[in-house]
């Protein structure tokens, strides 16, 4: 059952986390906190309706990559419309296609060097961001947060939800000229399922048991139990379809000789220095969430390996890079320089929150609620992120399907010190010595662990500290390196901690909170039941509804104090056109062009 489905090991999460994606999905917090990766929505119509290719909201890209934003409001993703939404739309194409200049090299940086550019052999975030360009997948997650056909033409789901049959498009060729057909799809997934491969991506396949080739262009996926996160998971780099010919040819070295069908192919990998991708001239883009339906405009993309963020920004300013991540406190300065543009992804799939150890005083609901009420999110967003974040009351990232502001408003804990005080008073907390509240003779004092390397986390913690102090809760802050923090969390050797997680699918609730919880601090059978329903519901609309129940329950129990979803911010030279992210957080390099 679903329990099995979400078996992503902590170690894997950590691996994801530690790597900072240069240009990709979600940068983990500076120190590396966030697990990242995957998944999103669910699947299509419960019935066996064929989901024809077409796209979902063909939003023209322009609206997406908001150039220079103001501080304020983030876009709330539309999640709910789910089901019906897979309506047709014209591919958003035409908008910029005609005008885009072709040619040129885009200079980017990656903070971490990939381990292997092989979907079956890595779940490292940096590698995943490269694989996104090298390998196309069966589905992509559209702006509506629903899966849409990509290499597949359509799919059918059996009535019990245990079989998904994909029809693969005809005429697609890998970079090596061989055909991408049903056999290649089966080969790619068999490779991940095969114990001999020892694929770290296997956990992402959930309850997938086997893959059958029905006919040359039809592939059936068989599950032991319905597994809703599957669509998002295979829309990530892990789901990349590899060339069987090339895998056989290169064997263990395939990770350094990747052959897929993506818009770019590997040109050169100079270990420790740079990785260069070049355009795949025969590329056909079947995605409908971008502008370009043909090959990429760029000739090449060069990723320099630069570990330090400040160095990356300096490289941008010296003209060495065309795009770089940028510290939110430096944005305003760069924004005013006509040489640069700032691109922002507000619908990010990360969330910052406080979580607690499973011990006193946090076993007391009143205290958890009071803390949640005491978080001045607006001030935190303003100070810690210079406004480049969205205050979030939901226990779910703003950019993930199922996020709905009304749930946070109704069940959450907006900043309200009076309510915090009343909650504490009602909970039996009385004034004690030194202005610190006490209950049963014990002062309410604890230490918040904050991973090092993140200025926003530190600043925000100081604000929370001051606010809590004003209502009689003494909170010390301890900044620790994430590598030494994690064992502490898992051993329960802490009081509370500041955490940041990134995951593009509603299954994030299960990853975080299902027994035993990602830090082994939670065990709530009622919550497990609600989460299990959400993870096994393939119908998008019903899945979102089930996810809402999970969110409400978590808020009622105040298991975490949600704080914000911080935006992904990039500075690009002004001649870079079309930089934008998809719903998962992969930049659409195929749409980028360079003007003189």
């Amino acid at each position, binding site marked *: 059952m679903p329990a099995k489905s979400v078996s992503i090991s902590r170690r894997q999460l950590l691996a994801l986390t530690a790597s900072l994606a240069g240009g990709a999905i979600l940068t983990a917090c500076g120190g590396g906190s966030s697990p990242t990766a995957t998944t999103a929505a669910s699947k299509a119509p419960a019935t066996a309706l064929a989901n024809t290719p077409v796209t979902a909201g063909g939003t023209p890209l322009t609206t997406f990559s908001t150039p220079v934003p103001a501080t304020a409001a983030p876009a709330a993703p539309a999640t709910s419309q789910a089901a019906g939404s897979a309506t047709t739309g014209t591919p958003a194409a035409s908008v910029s296609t005609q005008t885009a200049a072709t040619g040129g090299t885009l200079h980017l940086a990656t903070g971490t060097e990939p381990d292997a550019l092989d979907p079956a052999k890595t779940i490292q975030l940096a590698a995943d961001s490269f694989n996104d360009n090298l390998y196309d997948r069966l589905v992509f997650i559209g702006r509506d947060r629903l899966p849409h056909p990509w290499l597949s033409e359509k799919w059918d789901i059996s009535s019990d939800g245990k079989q998904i049959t994909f029809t693969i498009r005809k005429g697609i060729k890998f970079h090596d000229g061989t055909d991408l057909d049903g056999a290649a799809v089966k080969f790619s997934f068999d490779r991940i399922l095969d114990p001999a491969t020892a694929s770290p991506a296997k956990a992402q396949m959930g309850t997938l048991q086997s893959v059958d080739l029905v006919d040359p262009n039809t592939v059936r996926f068989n599950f032991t139990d319905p597994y809703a996160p599957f669509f998002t998971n295979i829309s990530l780099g892990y789901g990349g379809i590899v060339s069987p010919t090339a895998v056989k040819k290169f064997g263990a070295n395939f990770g350094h000789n990747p052959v897929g069908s993506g818009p770019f192919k590997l040109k050169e990998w100079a270990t420790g220095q740079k990785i260069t991708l070049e355009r795949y001239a025969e590329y056909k883009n079947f995605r409908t969430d971008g502008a370009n339906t043909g090959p990429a405009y760029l000739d090449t993309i060069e990723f320099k390996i630069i570990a330090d963020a400040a160095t990356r920004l300096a490289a941008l300013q010296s003209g060495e890079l065309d795009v770089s991540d940028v*510290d939110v*406190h*430096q944005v*305003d*300065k760069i924004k005013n320089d006509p040489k640069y543009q700032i691109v922002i992804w507000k619908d990010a799939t990360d969330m910052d929150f406080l979580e607690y150890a499973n011990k006193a005083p946090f076993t007391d609901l009143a205290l958890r609620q009071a803390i949640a009420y005491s978080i*001045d999110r607006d*001030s935190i967003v*303003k*100070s*810690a992120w210079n406004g480049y974040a969205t205050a979030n009351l939901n226990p779910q990232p703003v950019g993930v399907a199922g996020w709905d502001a009304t749930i946070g408003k109704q069940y959450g804990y907006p900043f309200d010190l009076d309510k915090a005080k009343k909650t504490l008073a009602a909970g039996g907390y009385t004034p004690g010595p030194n202005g610190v509240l006490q209950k049963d003779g014990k002062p309410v004092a604890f230490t918040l662990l904050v991973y*090092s*390397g993140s*200025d926003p986390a*530190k*600043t925000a*913690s*100081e*604000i929370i*500290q*001051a606010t809590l102090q004003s209502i009689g809760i003494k909170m*010390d*802050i*301890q*900044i*620790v*390196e994430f590598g*030494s923090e994690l064992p502490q969390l898992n051993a329960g050797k802490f009081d509370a901690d500041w955490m940041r997680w990134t995951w593009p699918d509603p299954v994030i609730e299960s990853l975080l909170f299902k027994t035993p919880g990602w830090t082994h601090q939670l065990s709530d059978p009622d919550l497990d039941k609600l989460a299990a329903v959400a993870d096994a519901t393939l119908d998008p609309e019903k899945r979102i509804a089930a996810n809402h129940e999970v969110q409400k329950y978590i808020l009622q129990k105040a298991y975490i104090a949600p704080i914000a979803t911080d935006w992904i911010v990039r500075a690009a030279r002004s001649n870079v056109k079309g930089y934008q992210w998809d719903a998962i957080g992969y930049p659409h390099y195929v749409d980028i062009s360079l003007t003189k």
Partner: protein
Amino acid sequence: MVYVRETTQGSAAIPVTEQRWRQRSGARDFGRALFRAAPGRIGGCIILGLIVIALLAPIVAPYSPVKIDIPNRLTGPSAHHLFGTDDIGRDVFSRVLSGSRISLRVGLVSVSIALAIGVTLGMIAGFYGGIVDLIVMRVVDIMLAFPGFLLALAIVAMLGPSLTNAMIAVGIGGASGFARLVRGSVLSVKEKDYVTAAHVIGATNGRIMSKAVLPNVLAPIVVLATLEFPVAILAAASLSFLGLGAQPPSPEWGSMLVSGRTYITTAPWLINFPGLAIFITVLGFNLFGNAVRDAMDPRLRQR
């Protein structure tokens, strides 16, 4: 020589015996030597000023160093906020003032720890000699082989990040220098007749060490301790800069620097003032330490 006092007696001065000199000089002569040159005076004034500031900080500071005021965040230096405000609206001037208490305490505690460990080990090694000396000094050699800061980093990594642990780490890191210095001095002092005499009259080793040896190796210890003081302050600030020392919201100068560094181009006062504070403090102690060394130099040479 310094202890031939510059009187009118001129070059024909009667050689002063060690005994007489001891009686007649002491603090006053030392003090005169210390403050004769400008560096000693400047250093002394800075230190005095720091101590006054540290003592009066709670009274003088216009705001609480941890008072948050978001609406007034990142305002530049003004009449209301002499040194401006930081990213959550705290008064930088008040924080820098309060930081002096922390830095002085760090210097004092770290050096005391280094002294206690280093002097004890050095005395034991030098006095007993032989296998004890061998073992102790090899350990000291190993510690010296590590760059001091690296050693402190390793210790903090073991103990966990906090200001107290940073002080302990810096103290342990500085101990080896004292041990080696003291051992060398003890080796020469213990051959003196008065030590032999003490043995002869049956004094215990402990008594000999404390009454006969220690007072006669004090001079180099004092010099090194003075010079170690700014090193300790700087090391602790560096640890805090790395997030391994003072924890938020402590107004430790090093941690103020690290918080302010992201605003280096937009709100330079966040790093200028704590940076200046560290600079002046370290400068003051260094000047003073050099002056102490110079003032004591003749005694060192005497050996």
